[in-house]
């Protein structure tokens, strides 16, 4: 079974703080993704990575950065947290290649920025 774990289930941070969200997958997947889930908006892609040290912007990258130093680990960084970044953050991973679409998700981190 694919296992995707996220470092925290719940996190409370103050405005302006630097925030790190960590994600680890144990299935040797090439691709990793960060989404945020907000009511009425579904899941929106922030950033993704298709290889170590490689990254690509998703649909809403502003205010975020990412780091992938090892294949199994993908970090999402909020450089200066703001209240509009209060959300559920979901990490996912997938295999690379044509016809391989299924993504496996972690349990999510609910981040509150006060």
């Amino acid at each position: 079974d694919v296992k995707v774990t996220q470092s925290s289930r719940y996190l409370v941070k103050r405005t302006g703080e630097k925030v790190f969200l960590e994600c680890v997958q144990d299935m040797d997947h090439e691709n990793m993704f960060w989404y945020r889930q907000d009511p009425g908006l579904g899941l929106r892609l922030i950033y993704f990575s298709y290889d170590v040290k490689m990254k690509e912007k998703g649909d809403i990258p502003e205010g975020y950065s990412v780091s992938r130093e090892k294949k199994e680990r993908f970090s999402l960084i909020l450089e200066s947290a703001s209240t509009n970044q209060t959300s559920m953050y979901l990490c996912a991973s997938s295999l690379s290649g044509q016809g391989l679409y299924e993504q496996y998700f972690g349990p999510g981190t609910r981040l509150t920025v006060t």
Partner: protein
Amino acid sequence: DQQVKQNSPSLSVQEGRISILNCDYTNSMFDYFLWYKKYPAEGPTFLISISSIKDKNEDGRFTVFLNKSAKHLSLHIVPSQPGDSAVYFCAASVRRIQGAQKLVFGQGTRLTINP
């Protein structure tokens, strides 16, 4: 601009009846579609998928129908069970030759199965 839309935020169905969840898309380049199910405090889990070359895919109680001309897909659950109560997300993808296959998600529909 929402490329994948689930226009019903919620749906309530009696146990044993059919649940029909709908999804519309605007990008005609989408060639693969997936449904995910999400329980509270858990990540989404893959449920069923369909390629654009098909119009129907079935897996047990779950069937997905694709109408390409209408840019519409639906998920049928028969018979509905209380454990099916969850939020369902529709997702779509444009095939990329290399690299990650990105998914575009709809807003989700909360399905409640009443005993």
